[in-house]
């Protein structure tokens, strides 16, 4: 075992700030400043409370209506969930899901089991998609200049337009698309192009897929998708490529990374990561190098030189960089055929070319790197957004159709899309919301949500899913294929276009194949592999460091490019590493913060080519010097009631030419903003919260038995337990989002989060070890520990929390009187108190999204993780009806199901053959705050320290 040095959670803690110590000493930060209550007042209040307490029992059970069907469909069974295979989309890529519906209302999405791209796992965007379906701020009917119109009016408009387009072959018609993988949409766009050959199609994507393809063209001479086969790797080197971070590829990469990591008795994959702004990939890397984005071309060329790539020369490097490269080069040489080098978006085309050369040299192609033609292919020649803006400004565009994009918000600030849009005669915005673009356009045509649509899309691996609706639309909306059909001069039913595409593809026995595809959520076959060799020829040397600072742009890990800004679930999700909710920050390096005397929350002004934006600072431990990080996706004006006016809009300073990395200046303003950061809430007092093992000493010391004065609880046949492997955790938050969806967790808003009142039953605690410049990061998901000797149970004055024979600390809401004693007794700080009534929000009817099997908690009630007791009970009922015992895997908690790396395992610890029992026998197994003698049922597996034990080397 390696004894870790001091673990810290924030820079204030590391610095030993006394104000900080005072703040965290309070059980509830907001209660730290209560005025002292006079004894007499206290007695008066208590007397009244006690006198009235009994009255709550006098509630008379009312008679309510019971409403049956008129003619009940045979499959409709009230209260019994039904599951449908379909998909939601992110950046145009399918995220195949299994949708759970109750009485025709979807309540929960999970990754589709059996699909190679999800394997039943999910990410935060997939989990939150179901909330977007019920968003009351969605566009609910077509509008013209803000006035509601009917679809008949829209049809008439399109026939008028078509007459205009036919005059000159659509010369003055432009179609602006976001990225798509839908075969049906591609077919329709092709048809539109053949009807109006002079019309041009432009592609605007916010997630950098266009740059990805451009890099592939630079490196390989043709457009390609690079598929990382991480499961075949034993060494991976990343140059500012956060492939384990959020995005459409996160799920597949994380699944494969975890498979490789668990390949043997010791970690099967080692990550070397050169990183500018700390993110998930760097956090789990064995060797992390702190390097500014503009250093990446130099680093990668030097690495190429060491590996003997022709034409590469050695650049000037710092000692730190040299040490990392020595190790990385040696590791790559030792693992040829099992190694992979990757580069991120902001690192430039030269880096991409060097990386391709290195991958060729180390034998990655075909082994650890699979190349395919792009999965997201619009099927016609497309031009860029820049060209569209030029044409709009020069008056060459009469009609602009914007399909599922919000360029007024997401276009780089240098383009000034809004003023260009005002020069277009007719602009038609087709989208889910009447957003910034919808408000400025002439027409706004509302789209169906993916869960209400007939459509199709391909997952990142190229496998197609036919998207089937799981409910009829709430609002007067149409699918993109119906609207495209209107543009093509037809009025089509929602599923007709999709059926046509697949009738052509399936050929014979269409009906059977169609049914099979709908049932499976998958059309067999994925993108075929392509053999490509890197472009040879001289690679220009990287330019010397420019003046000004590196300003890197990142998509927000929770609201992505801004499209999810109106989803409270995502806004309130603590972002990995910073644990920030409700907003975005400017990430600065600790050295710069010391030099300019900046504290967290001080407002900074970023100046890129004269365009300015200001946002609060966040000192990011481990960030490269001379580098600033901006997050896109916030600062929205027309997102809806939840998402408006949160954070700053980084798109406004984004240069169109280099959208991921810019040079600019940063200065401190004289203001401060409060940040809703959760890491300091629910703090545990103790040490060794996260533990490590190394290859040299792979076993933690056996725990010493803790004596207890309490008699042991008799156990039922099943005894539930959970083991969380912190070595596998990448801090992606999928578990927290899944728990929110499964357990009806309330969203409390920024002000309440600042007071420490967030309601998540599961938190991903983040710890640092080491100095602030080059710390090592640890993620630790902390749900309720379900202690066998639970302090909370001993504390409750009304027995509202009791011990079940299966070992769960049961929280009985209807008994709880809200003393919060249990929470102050809880050493793990996993209990959450309802300070306000979050059950019914009249202006946002979210009831249909609630899981009907879980109580909505009222004000004044404590709540906490229940190990998804509704799933345990459902499994018991199913097994009891068959009169059999529960089998391992019958109960899967929501967090466990979501986790892409299978870091969370739940099961019966009385069964020695269950997966959880096997993990509990591992040498890495330990209990949190074991010395307290609480005997928790939730336990952990220590992180592997597979890097060097030498602190300085591990940077």
């Amino acid at each position: 075992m390696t004894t870790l040095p001091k673990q810290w959670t924030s820079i204030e803690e590391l610095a030993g700030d006394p104000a900080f110590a005072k703040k965290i000493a309070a059980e509830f930060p907001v209660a730290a400043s209560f005025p002292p209550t006079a004894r007499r007042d206290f007695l008066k209040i208590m007397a009244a409370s006690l006198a009235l307490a009994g009255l709550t029992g006098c509630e008379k059970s009312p008679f309510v209506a019971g409403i049956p069907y008129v003619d009940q469909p045979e499959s409709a069974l009230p209260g019994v969930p039904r599951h449908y295979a379909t998909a939601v989309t992110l950046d145009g890529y399918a995220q195949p899901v299994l949708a759970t519906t109750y009485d025709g209302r979807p309540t929960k999405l999970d990754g589709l089991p059996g699909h190679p791209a999800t394997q039943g796992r999910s990410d935060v965007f997939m989990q939150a998609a179901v909330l977007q379906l019920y968003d009351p701020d969605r566009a609910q009917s077509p509008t013209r200049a803000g006035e509601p119109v009917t679809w008949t009016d829209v049809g008439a408009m399109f026939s008028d337009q078509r007459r205009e387009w036919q005059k000159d072959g659509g010369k003055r018609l432009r179609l602006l698309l976001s990225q798509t993988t839908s075969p049906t949409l591609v077919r329709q766009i092709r048809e539109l192009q053949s009807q109006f050959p002079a019309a041009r199609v432009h592609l605007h994507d916010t997630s950098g897929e266009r740059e990805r393809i451009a890099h592939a063209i630079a490196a390989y001479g043709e457009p390609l998708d690079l598929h990382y086969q991480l499961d075949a790797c034993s060494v991976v080197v990343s140059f500012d490529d956060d492939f384990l971070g959020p995005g459409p590829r996160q799920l597949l990469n994380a699944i494969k990374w975890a498979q490789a990591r668990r390949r043997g008795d010791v970690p099967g994959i080692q990550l070397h990561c050169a990183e500018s702004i700390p993110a998930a990939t760097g956090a789990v890397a064995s060797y992390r190098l702190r390097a500014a984005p503009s250093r990446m071309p130099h680093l990668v060329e030097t690495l190429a030189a060491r590996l003997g790539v022709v034409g590469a020369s050695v650049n000037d490097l710092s000692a730190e960089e040299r040490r990392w490269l020595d190790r990385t080069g040696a590791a790559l040489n030792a693992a040829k055929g099992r190694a992979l080098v990757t580069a991120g978006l902001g690192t430039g085309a030269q880096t991409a070319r060097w990386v391709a050369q290195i991958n060729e040299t180390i034998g990655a192609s075909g082994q650890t790197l699979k190349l395919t033609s792009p999965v997201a292919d619009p099927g016609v020649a497309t031009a860029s957004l820049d060209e569209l803006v030029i044409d709009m400004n020069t008056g060459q565009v009469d009609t602009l159709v914007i399909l599922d994009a919000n360029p007024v918000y997401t276009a780089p600030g240098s383009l000034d899309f809004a003023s260009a849009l005002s020069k277009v005669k007719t602009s038609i915005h087709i989208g889910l919301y009447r957003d910034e673009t919808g408000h400025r356009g002439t027409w706004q045509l509302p789209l169906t949500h993916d869960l209400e649509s007939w459509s199709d899309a391909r997952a990142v691996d190229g496998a197609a899913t036919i998207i089937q609706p799981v409910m009829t639309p709430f609002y007067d909306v149409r699918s993109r294929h119906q609207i495209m059909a209107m543009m093509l001069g037809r009025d089509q039913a929602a599923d007709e276009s999709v059926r046509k595409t697949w009738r052509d593809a399936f050929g014979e026995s269409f009906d059977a194949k169609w049914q099979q595809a709908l049932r499976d959520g998958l059309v067999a076959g994925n993108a075929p592999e392509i053999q490509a060799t890197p472009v040879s020829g001289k690679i220009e040397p990287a330019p010397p460091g420019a003046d000004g600072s590196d300003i890197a742009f990142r998509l927000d890990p929770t609201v992505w490019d801004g499209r999810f800004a109106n989803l409270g679930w995502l806004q309130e999700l603590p972002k990995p590493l910073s644990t920030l909710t409700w907003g975005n920050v400017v990430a600065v390096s600790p050295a710069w913060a010391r030099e300019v005397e900046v504290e967290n929350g001080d407002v900074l002004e970023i100046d890129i080519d004269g365009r300015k934006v200001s946002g609060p600072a966040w000192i990011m431990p481990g960030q490269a010097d001379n580098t600033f990080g901006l997050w896109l996706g916030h600062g929205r004006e027309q997102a809806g009631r939840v998402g408006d006016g949160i954070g700053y809009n980084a798109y406004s300073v984004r240069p169109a030419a280099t959208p991921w990395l810019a040079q600019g200046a940063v200065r401190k303003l004289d203001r401060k903003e409060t940040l809703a950061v959760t890491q300091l809430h629910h703090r545990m007092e103790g040490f060794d919260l996260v533990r490590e093992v190394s290859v040299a000493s792979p076993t933690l010391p056996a725990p010493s038995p803790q004596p207890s004065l309490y008699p042991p609880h008799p156990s039922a046949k099943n005894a539930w337990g959970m083991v969380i492997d912190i070595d596998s955790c990448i801090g992606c938050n999928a578990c927290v989002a899944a728990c929110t969806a499964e357990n009806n967790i309330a969203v409390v808003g920024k002000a309440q989060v600042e007071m420490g009142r967030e309601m998540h039953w599961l938190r991903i605690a983040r710890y640092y070890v080491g100095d602030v410049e080059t710390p090592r990061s640890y993620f630790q998901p902390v749900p309720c520990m379900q202690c066998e000797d639970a302090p909370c149970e001993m504390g409750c004055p009304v027995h509202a929390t009791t011990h079940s024979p299966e070992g769960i600390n049961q929280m009985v809401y209807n008994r709880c009187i809200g003393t919060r004693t249990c929470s102050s007794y809880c050493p793990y700080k996993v209990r959450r108190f309802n300070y306000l009534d979050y059950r019914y929000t009249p202006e946002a009817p979210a009831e249909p999204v609630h899981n009907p099997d879980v109580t909505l908690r009222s004000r004044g009630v404590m709540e906490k993780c229940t190990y998804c007791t509704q799933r345990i009970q459902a499994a018991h009922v199913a097994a009891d009806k068959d009169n059999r015992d529960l089998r391992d895997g019958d109960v899967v908690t929501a967090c466990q199901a979501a986790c892409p790396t299978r870091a969370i395992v739940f099961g019966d610890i009385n069964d020695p053959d269950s997966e959880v029992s096997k993990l509990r026998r591992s040498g890495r197994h330990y209990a949190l705050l074991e010395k307290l003698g609480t005997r928790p049922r939730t336990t952990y597996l220590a992180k592997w320290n597979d890097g060097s034990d030498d602190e300085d080397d591990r940077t």
Partner: protein
Amino acid sequence: MTQIFSPTADTWLRLAVVGFLSACGASLVAAIGFARSSYVTSTDIAPHQPVPFSHRHHVGELGIDCRYCHADVERGPKAGLPPTATCMTCHSQIWTHAAMLAPVRQSLTENKPLRWTRVAKLPDYVFFRHDIHIAKGVGCVTCHGRVDTMPLTYRARAFTMQFCLDCHRDPTPNLRPADKITDMTWKPAGPPRDLGARIAAHVGIRSGELTHCYVCHR
């Protein structure tokens, strides 16, 4: 020196103490009595229904099985109120013009569901499932009473926590063979506990695990 206390003062004091204690006791008894009264538990009250449906006629006299109308009872948590179409299986043939059935015919023609008043209802924080109770041998009559004798349906039992727990603690006297679940008049031949114990062993009732909170509350 004048006496502060009169000769009767002691008696008054004793009376006051006794009176106070009996008032406390009486209010306790009254409160418990009130909470258990049919006023609070809504037992023995037949609420107004759009159609005066008689279980006595349909079950007791015609002998229609419970599951003919409450068809989901073995498959899901809810027994299910019969859809209008179920009523019309018979009433499209008999009593086709009865005034009493006008709302049913109207529901069918307008495709609008009937709005019944639910008689049996548990609080929202109780998660009850019909299917498992039936699978384990709890008869309809145990909770719903002699529905076959009710001209208008009323709540036969107060669904108090005690009512549920009595059976969850010791289900054996209330179990019956699978083919007698809907039988309103069935009585065990011997002592109910003997048969119940045999059934409990046969269907695998997890005795002792059924009283913890999360079985019903979550």
